[in-house]
């Protein structure tokens, strides 16, 4: 569905991605794990066009997207849920969700999707008229994912959804991610530091170290690989 080939991304003079290539097959959950500063988030930012790559190629459903502006990439159905949630604190929960549907005009469909999201996260339904900034961290993460879903994405890019959450909430979030993938056939690209959880729900996995992909395999194989166990699972 999405193919990344020899991607190089820079922040000014800093070479953050060094010839990164990977594939995201349709309907799968693919995870990218790695330590802090490995370039995982940069990979996501490059796909969504917020930090455009300098060299290399990204094709989505056969169309090259690496030179498109973020809003056009978004319109194609590639939606990023940014790291650290970044919800709009001065907008209510429903308004936040509506911002996710910014490019849509079908009011009926939007209402339906909001209902679907409230069934996915009943907590958000309870807080629908509350300001985004007054939600707890877990609720904000739910809202961030939901906001991403509001545009009916074909590919959902999740950047560290477990960041700073209690273990119970992490379980809930990951279960919901799995559910979204199963029910809507949404392809999901999951960037995570919590390698254990990520590999449990993913179909495939990539391991990244200082801007380079060092390992790639099915998630089950990676979970059992000695190298991953040592470096990321702490076993």
């Amino acid at each position, binding site marked *: 569905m999405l193919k990344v080939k020899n991607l190089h991304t820079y922040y000014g003079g800093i070479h953050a991605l060094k010839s990164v290539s990977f594939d995201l097959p349709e309907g799968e959950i693919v995870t990218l794990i790695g330590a802090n500063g490995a370039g995982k988030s940069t990979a996501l930012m490059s796909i969504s066009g917020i930090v455009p790559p300098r060299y290399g190629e990204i094709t989505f459903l056969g169309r090259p997207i690496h030179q498109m502006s973020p809003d056009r990439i978004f319109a194609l159905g590639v939606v990023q*849920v940014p790291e650290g949630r970044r919800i*709009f604190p001065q907008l209510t929960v429903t308004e936040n969700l509506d911002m996710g549907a910014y490019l849509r005009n079908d009011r009926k469909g939007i209402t339906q999707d909001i209902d679907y999201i409230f069934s996915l996260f009943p907590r958000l339904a309870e807080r629908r008229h509350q300001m985004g900034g007054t939600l707890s961290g877990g609720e904000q993460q739910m809202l961030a994912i939901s906001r991403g879903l509001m545009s009916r994405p074909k590919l959902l890019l999740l950047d560290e959804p477990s960041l700073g959450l209690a273990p119970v909430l992490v379980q809930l979030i990951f279960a919901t991610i799995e559910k979204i993938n199963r029910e809507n056939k949404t392809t999901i690209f999951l960037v995570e530091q919590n390698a254990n959880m990520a590999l449990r729900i993913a179909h495939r996995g990539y391991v990244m170290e200082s801007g380079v992909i060092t390992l790639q395999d099915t998630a089950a194989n990676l979970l059992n690989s000695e190298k991953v166990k040592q470096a990321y699972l702490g076993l």
Partner: protein
Amino acid sequence: MTAQSTLSIRRAASEIGRSLLVSCWFMFLTFPIMVIKVNPLERTIDWQWMRLVWIGLAVFPLSFVWRWLMRRKEHGGSQDGEDNWQKRLGEKIRADGKIYTALLAILAVFVVAFPFMFSSYQTQIMISALMYVMLGLGLNIVVGLAGLLDLGYVAFYAVGAYSYALLNHHFGLGFWPALPLGAGLAAVFGILLGFPVLRLRGDYLAIVTLGFGEIIRLVLENWNTFSFGPSGIAGISRPWFFGADLSLGQHTVFLYFIVLILVAFTIVVVNRLRNSRIGRAWIALREDEVACQAMGIDKTRTKLTAFSLGATWAGFVGCVFAAKTTFINPASFTFMESAIILSIVVLGGMGSIIGVIVGAMVLILLPEYLRAFSEYRMLVFGASMVLIMVFRPQGIIVGVRQHYRFGRKESTEEQGERDAASA
């Protein structure tokens, strides 16, 4: 003597001590300007010691009041209480249709009757206050909603004024066709300014817009063949009213109604904009640019619409200004104007329409009626700004945005149906 009473005596003593300290400090601070009076003719110095005593005596009780106010503010009781009070009043008025329409009707009758009740001079002042209401509402789009600090707003005002003045001078174009043209030109300039500053935020944006405002003014001042330089353009036609020959007083009344209608139009448009999707995109962009991009919001277009829409209102008001004064020159478009308009927005309450209206009325009408103390005008102006910023940092009227309740009606109905079905 009980322990409690000694404690309260000690507290009172410390309070008095602090106030004494504050008055001494003020006496020291104001010493050079209040006490020393140099007489350059006789080359002598008059020492006005009595003034020092007066300052000390005045500051002493004021420092009690100040500390009391600060304490009230810190406890949060007063501000929350006031906000609640304001909110409750607002909700009550909004909820009760009768009171709302009655208030609106009274206000409408008052503003319509205003030029007939008061003198031509008062009407003139009101016209300029209403013009600043429009300017404030226009800038509110850029600063209050989109969060782009624009210090060169007066440039668009100048564009509007000069486009009417020049079109009138060279082609004899009347006020009515010039009004949309001036606004359109200002919008174009808004986009022109918008493009280079798209990447900037906060302080940097403020500096660039400040520079832009000055550039426009300097061009107008120095490009003599185009804008007639500092001598300006005189003899601009007044608005045409079905070919009627109006006296000066009648013209003022007519202009008053033009401005009134424009203000009403502005309020309607700004209110619609604020609660529209683009309005929410502005607010979202103000809060988080990356998240906005992740939501597929076109950053460039959203910012440019904010700039150009804000500029449009300045263009409207510019045309009205040229028609009102019939003479314009670059001196009317200095940075001070931008600063005043920005103060209207900030003091009135960013993002709040009523706040901006109140802010404009206070900032424009107050100096007019304080003409008797014109020497102290800036002092009062500055002091009131400091006071408002200390005690009401969000502005006089805190903006209450209408919240978007998506499909609430349907979902409660559905809920009802579901309940009925399950029962």
